[in-house]
């Protein structure tokens, strides 16, 4: 199991050092600094073995977190734990920075004592931790409160405490998708996939039982025709842009509150949600993706000292919808000496430091087209190596889900309290963002 956990600043000074096992000595602290933080080479592996000691490391802004062990630990677990540790710290004191860590070092030690026992990760749900790891101490608790805390920390529903009350029961669902594309210069899709997340914010009283439904192909097909046509009428309101009725989900993963065995047998998603914001599910689709933009590049080499570039972008969604924050990044060779750009819409600039022309458009409606052309002057070089022509990449945000996913329902049942599903105010929002959206040229 994890033998020790160290946090360093970018200079390699230790900010936090907590040793759990006898086989990890103080010299491990220095070994990591010398061999990884001060190493001249860029990190070649997130797991480094120095003198039979393994270091798992992640970096957040300029802070290094390293878990150390001499045993054959579950490596995936160690990294998951480090990420979780970051989440917990962020939830407690915001951004992970040297200053915040120094300011909260007592708290961090207290957390480390609680969430890692003898190197074994323990309950690390922020919701539960905040009930008893506070900076105020827990002196004032009554006996009932104490046993409530312990039963929550160890219980089946470790992520939610009892007795939550809201005057207004409300929930928010965000369907956040990132669409990834790699396209050949000829417009052939080399690979495309959507990785999506359903993020939920719940402000619900009591211990509500929720059921979430979406236009999952397997479920829709199972329900048969009658139900599907019934849904079709509703789903047009769904905020998406296509008329697709169901989507094929390649794979999905769920927050630990979701009953996985039930999903496995009935494909229904039921759960008691944590209070506040959390990620309900992640999913991935590869079929029938709506690609919001098409990039058509044209690069022509004029002699040895000039390049002519023309890039056309086409938006491919309902004309009534607006894409935002559009940015096209056209890489330029290292020996570029000057660039002239002309674009129909938005602003374009050559950024020498980034070796790219950056073209920004604030808004663009669906089914439109825009174009940029640039002349790139090159310095003559005797470098034998050809310019690698990195792909043209794009960023954008669109108000629909490129996978076609739609939320069909989210039902809330709380039998003990006197509010019903109809009393809950529900909001849904779809945001599609570019992930790695590249077109080779």
């Amino acid at each position, binding site marked *: 199991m994890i033998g020790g956990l160290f946090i360093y600043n970018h200079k390699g000074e230790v900010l936090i050092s907590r040793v759990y096992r006898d086989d990890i000595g103080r010299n491990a602290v220095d070994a990591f600094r010398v061999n990884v933080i001060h190493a001249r080479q860029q990190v070649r592996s997130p797991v480094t073995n120095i003198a039979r000691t393994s270091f798992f490391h992640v970096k957040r802004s300029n802070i290094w977190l390293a878990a150390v062990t001499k045993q054959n630990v579950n490596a995936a677990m160690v990294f*998951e734990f480090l990420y979780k540790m970051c989440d917990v710290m962020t*939830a407690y004191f915001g951004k992970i920075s040297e200053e915040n860590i120094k300011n909260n070092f007592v708290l961090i030690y207290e957390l480390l004592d609680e969430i890692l026992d003898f190197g074994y990760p323990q309950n690390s749900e922020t919701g539960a931790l905040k009930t008893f790891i506070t900076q105020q101490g827990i002196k004032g608790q009554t006996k009932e409160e*104490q046993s409530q805390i312990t039963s929550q920390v160890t219980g089946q529903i470790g992520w939610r405490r009892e007795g939550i009350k809201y005057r207004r029961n409300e929930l928010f669902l965000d369907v956040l998708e990132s669409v990834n594309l790699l396209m050949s210069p000829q417009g052939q899709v080399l690979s495309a996939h959507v990785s999506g997340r359903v993020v939920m914010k719940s402000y619900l009283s009591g211990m509500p039982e929720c059921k979430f439904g979406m236009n999952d192909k397997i479920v829709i097909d199972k329900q048969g025709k009658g139900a599907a046509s019934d849904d079709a009428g509703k789903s047009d309101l769904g905020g998406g842009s296509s008329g697709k009725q169901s989507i094929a989900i390649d794979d999905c993963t769920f927050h630990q509150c979701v009953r996985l065995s039930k999903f496995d047998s009935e494909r229904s998603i039921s759960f008691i949600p944590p209070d506040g914001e959390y990620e309900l599910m992640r999913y991935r689709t590869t079929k029938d993706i709506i690609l919001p933009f098409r990039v058509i590049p044209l690069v022509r080499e004029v002699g040895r000292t000039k390049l002519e570039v023309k890039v056309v972008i086409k938006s491919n969604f309902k004309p009534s919808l607006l894409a935002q924050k559009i940015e096209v990044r056209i890489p330029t060779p290292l020996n570029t000496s000057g660039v002239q750009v002309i674009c129909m819409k938005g602003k374009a600039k050559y950024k020498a430091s980034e070796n790219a022309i950056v073209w920004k458009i604030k808004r663009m409606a669906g089914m439109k087209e825009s174009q940029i052309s640039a002349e790139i002057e090159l310095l003559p070089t005797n470098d034998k190596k050809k310019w690698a022509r990195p792909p043209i990449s794009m960023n954008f945000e669109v108000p629909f889900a490129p996978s076609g996913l739609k939320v069909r329902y989210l039902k809330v049942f709380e039998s003990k309290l006197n509010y019903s599903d109809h009393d809950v105010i529900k909001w849904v929002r779809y945001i599609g963002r570019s992930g790695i959206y590249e077109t080779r040229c």
Partner: protein
Amino acid sequence: MTEVNQGRRQKAITAPTTPVTENRQFGSKMTDSKYFTTTKKGEIFELKAELNSDKKEKKKEAVKKVIASMTVGKDVSALFPDVVNCMQTDNLELKKLVYLYLMNYAKSQPDMAIMAVNTFVKDCEDPNPLIRALAVRTMGCIRVDKITEYLCEPLRKCLKDEDPYVRKTAAVCVAKLHDINAQLVEDQGFLDTLKDLISDSNPMVVANAVAALSEIAESHPNSNLLDLNPQTINKLLTALNECTEWGQIFILDCLANYTPRDDRESQSICERVTPRLSHANSAVVLSAVKVLMKFMEMLPKDLDYYGTLLKKLAPPLVTLLSAEPELQYVALRNINLIVQRRPEILKHEMKVFFVKYNDPIYVKLEKLDIMIRLASQANIAQVLAELKEYATEVDVDFVRKAVRAIGRCAIKVEQSAERCVSTLLDLIQTKVNYVVQEAIVVIKDIFRKYPNKYESVIATLCENLDSLDEPEARAAMIWIVGEYAERIDNADELLESFLEGFHDESTQVQLQLLTAIVKLFLKKPTETQELVQQVLSLATQDSDNPDLRDRGYIYWRLLSTDPVAAKEVVLAEKPLISEETDLIEPTLLEELICHIGTLASVYHKPPSAFVEGSRGVQHKRLPGSAGSGESVESPDTGSAAGVSEAPPAVIPSQGDLLGDLLNLDLTPPTTTGPPPPPASSGMQMGAMDLLGGGLDSLLGGDLGGGPAMGTGFGAPPAAMPASFNVPVSGGLDDLFDLGGGVGMPMGAFNPPKTVWLPAMKAKGLEISGTFVRRAGVIQMEMTLTNKAMSVMTDFAIQFNRNSFGLAPAGPLQVLTPLSPNQSIEAALPLSTVGPVMKMEPLNNLQVAVKNNIDVFYFSCQYPISMLFAEDGKMERQVFLATWKDIPNDNESQFQIKDCHLNSDAASNKLQGSNIFTIAKRTVEGQDMLYQSMKLTNGIWVLAELRVQAGNPNYTISLKCRAPEVSQCVFQNYEMVLKN
């Protein structure tokens, strides 16, 4: 959809930073960072004063400063008593800080630490469960014997505490205590209590108990501590649905150690584990994959469920690739293993392994590996297009690997070879130095796989000769020039250009150059005589490198004695290289599959390679497949499992007793190029004058002469090629047998071959063997079997010093590379003039065998009759005198039971093993046989064998000046007489 309000929300969802803003106050309110800045002198003194202050706030501040100093590595142990004094407080924050200090320094101040015990014991009784748990948790971390004694009682109570939070903490505490004092834990019966916790009602208690038990069980490999049976498994599976993500990992990892009784049970566990594949925590997913991969082995392949399961595994594995980069790396290393074990799972998922422009380099390199593993005829076009893109990237390592990957594709997918070669040629045209060099190295391999197909590209390669500065690329290029010398007009000029800086080249290049020029000479003898002279003299006279000199001499002698033979040797047909040389050896792969998700799977090494102590030394294996009548894919799984049950012969560690063996030079003949010429008998005779005395030992020590020998060695060289692929010594035997005269009426008894080195322990190499003595020559006859998936070459053997100075009389002759599933017989002539060291037992022999993969060690015992000389027949008179001369103390008597031979038959049989009967006397129906034998080192053993008609029990008395051999001799009698 009506239940949910539609449309875009503006105000409804605020930024995700809300919880952060509420907590910022922490930062602004408390500026703990100031504690980090105190570096004044006299600091310790000041802190001491503050710690003893009456004001609670001041105390707390002081303790914080102490902890901050501790963190940055300052020694604040001097404050121990003052800090411990602060322990008795009802301020929990302060208490925790003091505990933290205690955990760090208690070990260095054990006497002081005792001061804390009372508070701990008291806290363990506190009404607040959080405080009870805190006390027991901290106490377990204080590794001081005196404290652990006091820990037992509170721990016992806490294990049965009414509060689950306390119980789950106590469960881990048992593991802590076990780490400090294992005996104490056993004596106090904590292990049983811990086992009971597996049935606890609270899932988290179950999970922690499982984790603690698994850890304790690891240091007691055979304790059967985690007595997994269907009932406990059922409990674990129930808890699996309810506990935290971490608990699920502990339980799944534990489950993976269980071996279901049959395929039914296996399937039902798999069914209950599959839902975990949808968990958001990647570690839960990977641990579930491990359980499934392992238990799948037991499912019959024709089962519908088997197919379903295979399909279910792919999507979660792909999803792991959208995790954070560090986890992607862990996932990719594991996928690499999974793809090797079960390629069908991901065969359609090639695209997800395409490299993204901004993937970290470690992710890129791993993806590339998997792409090659998944490359097939169906997707090769796509793969090649990608690889070509990668070859133009920035990172040098990545580019090199991409170029190499193109070559591997060519070798793996035959239909693509042509396209790969043309892609490589395009890359060579870029003239980027390292790309060109890498391309040449892989093109050499392509030539080895498809000879006489792509030689048209040689011209292009030759153009780039000057730009090659890396040894591997230079060696590859030289090999190409030598191999195809007849088609390259100016081959001699090209090679000559390399010769100029011969001594500055690396060994690899020098060896290659030597071989290439010899090849050239054999192909174009007229123009290149001078060149070959030059290289031979450079190699033999001016070089310090023994490998180079040896190879030089061998060529020289070959060329000067028999050019025809030289041609046979140097220009011999090479075996085609195999396509899967980079696969992990199957037994290791199986073990690694059992370790999916762990460090072992990241390093691709068994835990014993990087974990110290007893932990992780156990080798895990996949369960054998159940279900009748289907001989599933891995027949070696079963056999490997069987073999490992009988561990005796293999020397477990490369420990000290093998010290000097390890220092021996085991370097085999160098890799590339043709195998070195075998020491064929005729050649050696011819070369005798050159090699000097060295050869004598090669032919076995006491090979004094004998009439057959002359004719044997006189055999015309033309006969050589015939015996070429037969182990040389085998050929020698035939010659001696022809010569006759030495042969015995019954022939010597040779024990059957036994397995000396099981494949399990030697990365797929199995060696079985026996010893024979024929006509005065001792031989070790071995069968080498390759149970791995890659070709084995470069065999070499070496003995440790042993009782009778046995040593190989020549190199181990395994001429052709050993392909997977192939066996080869090798006979190694032994001499008895090697270094001597007394072994226990006396006839024990420790052997090291090396091949291109690794060095392996085993030990075996030879029958002592191997050492009985042919001239062991004593004169009667001498026998009598000697018998009397040897003191009676040296006489030992043994019984040989159940032997049904009469005395003549026995005598005859024994003579076959050079045990000679000198006289026979019959007294009262009892035959007395007087026998003598002589060991190679000159020790005489005298024997009296009493055989009574009708009595199957013989009595034997042995007399010898070195009585320690008697036991061995007796064993030998028994063996010979009973076989």
